[in-house]
């Protein structure tokens, strides 16, 4: 039982993933509404309200600028809530993980399932916001379809980061710190509401290395119907955060359960 071992490939995570899917199916509507309400309000209120006062931002209407940010932010929020509050409930309050461990499953299987599930659930949220963007006529570009893989990767990335914090949480209160000290500053640094180029010169490069900024950099051109000028760098940033974070989450979770 090497705490630092890489997880071995298997499909044992599937029944755990299906468990979470079955719970979600019972509460799907409430779950989607809860996850996309905030990014939607932001999109409509700021996009139409503030957008009416603003000239074009980066050469496009403000609501179109904001649409990609809202999709990425909504995805990040959904993945984070799932990997923090929901996973913590299953791990700690409900002791679902303990029951799973009494079956022929390992922590690795459970964590991979939680990760893929957080990614899936956040995709539902990202998809819902994209649908609103289409319905409101903010954008109807065919390249919107390519936002989906970006959404998936964003969800997996923030799911993995969330699981790291889940592994070291003692109570739900701890997650408040994560949201106020990590998530909220990241939103303001990642070009969701305004272009990163508006940031001070010393801050802009730091901001560009954030996973949410990488997601926005990929999604925004696709939402407005263009091919991203930079594909590989933001893609590599998201992949790097995802793979490092899921490995750290595994090690931290193994440590938690060994104690």
């Amino acid at each position, binding site marked *: *039982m090497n705490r630092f071992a890489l997880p071995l490939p298997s499909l044992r995570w599937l*029944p755990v993933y*299906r468990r979470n899917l079955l*719970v979600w199916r019972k509460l799907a509507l409430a779950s989607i509404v809860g996850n996309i309400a905030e990014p939607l309000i932001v999109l409509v209120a700021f996009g139409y309200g503030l957008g009416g006062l603003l000239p074009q931002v980066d050469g496009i209407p403000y609501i179109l600028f904001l649409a990609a940010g809202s999709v990425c932010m909504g995805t990040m929020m959904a993945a984070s809530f799932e990997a923090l509050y929901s996973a913590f409930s299953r791990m700690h309050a409900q002791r679902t993980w303990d029951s799973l461990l009494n079956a*022929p499953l390992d922590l690795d299987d459970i964590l991979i399932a939680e990760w893929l599930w957080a990614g899936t659930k956040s995709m539902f949220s990202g998809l819902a916001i994209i649908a609103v963007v289409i319905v409101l006529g903010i954008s109807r570009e065919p390249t919107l379809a390519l936002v989906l893989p970006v959404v998936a990767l964003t969800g997996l990335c923030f799911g993995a980061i969330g699981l790291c914090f889940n592994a070291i949480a003692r109570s739900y209160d701890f997650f408040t710190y994560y949201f106020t000290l990590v998530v909220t500053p990241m939103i303001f640094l990642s070009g969701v509401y305004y272009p990163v180029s508006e940031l001070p010169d010393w801050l802009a490069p730091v901001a560009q290395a954030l996973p949410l900024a990488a997601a926005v950099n990929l999604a925004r051109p696709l939402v407005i119907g263009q091919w991203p000028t930079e594909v590989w760098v933001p893609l590599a940033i998201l992949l790097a955060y995802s793979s490092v974070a899921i490995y750290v989450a595994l090690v931290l979770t193994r440590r938690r359960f060994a104690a």
Partner: protein
Amino acid sequence: MNEPYRRQDRAGSAEPGGRDAVARRDRGAEPARPARASVGLAHRPDARSQRPHRLSAAADGTPPDPVLVVRGLVKQYGSLRALDGLDFEVRRGECFGLLGPNGAGKSTALKLILGLAAPDAGDIRVLGLPVPQKARELRRRAGVVPQADALDPDFTVAENLLVFGRYFGLSDALVRTRIDPLLEFAGLLGKRDAKITELSGGMKRRLTLARALVNDPEILFLDEPTTGLDPQARHLIWERLRRLLADGKTIVLTTHFMEEAERLCSRLAVVDHGRLIAEGTAESLIAAHVQPNVVELSGDGVADWLQANAPLAGVSHHELVGETAFLYCADAESPAAARARAAGLRVLRRAANLEDVFLELTGRELRD
């Protein structure tokens, strides 16, 4: 054919002198009782024949092979030595009880036996499998009733069983054939589509037991199975566990209820400070560690009376716990009882029980 559940009365299929008779004799429990038709958990005979050592055990009358062997188990948590060289064996078909005060190491032992944590030293073999190396294979063939029910509150009763069966890699079709017999066994058939929040504490416990049987385990581990239940619910759990024993399951349980241990367990191990301090049947433990008769004295001035009158004739030793004195006597008719009654104390005479052994071995100070 790996469908192990069959609804039939197995009494007719247990031939005299066969494995079941041996297993029951070995348990030294009450007379053999037929498994009820409603249990629906009997093994197929062909499944049994795949375990030749059990049949050979019946033939020459020797005890069945141990299905669980624990040797020199050590587990250290920081400065706490939770297990300090624990040894014991469990034989097939028996109900084995791990007794000990809170913090004695019972739950840690279970955790290690299931391979959920690695021991710092020692060997574990369950169903012939080395643990933790083959822990996953072991857990595939074992059932676990944890201390906390941990049922899925978002699912119905039946869904809880279906989803749990999937964790064992069982097909939905197979699990669905098992749900009704399991719910019938647990007395929950009428609650099939109920939500978990609608169940009483006893019902949740029975559902947790049914869930632990979804993979038709060979060995069942129960961690304090009746803690927190009222007497009615407790008796119902005990009755179901006896049915499982009659079906040939091996049961390992931890408890600090002496009544539970005396009623269910064919053999007991008393554990304290992470070590085995006594092992045997309830009768043999009582015979070995305490006098057969106990006189309990209570009332005002017990301590003073005891101090004034000790040593008492016919009393091998005594204990004072709060306002009650326990006098351990070889003979049922101790002259001390009459003297205490004459002094105005309340006197209760009874046979020694497992609780006396437990308190004798683990001390009377409060554990937290």
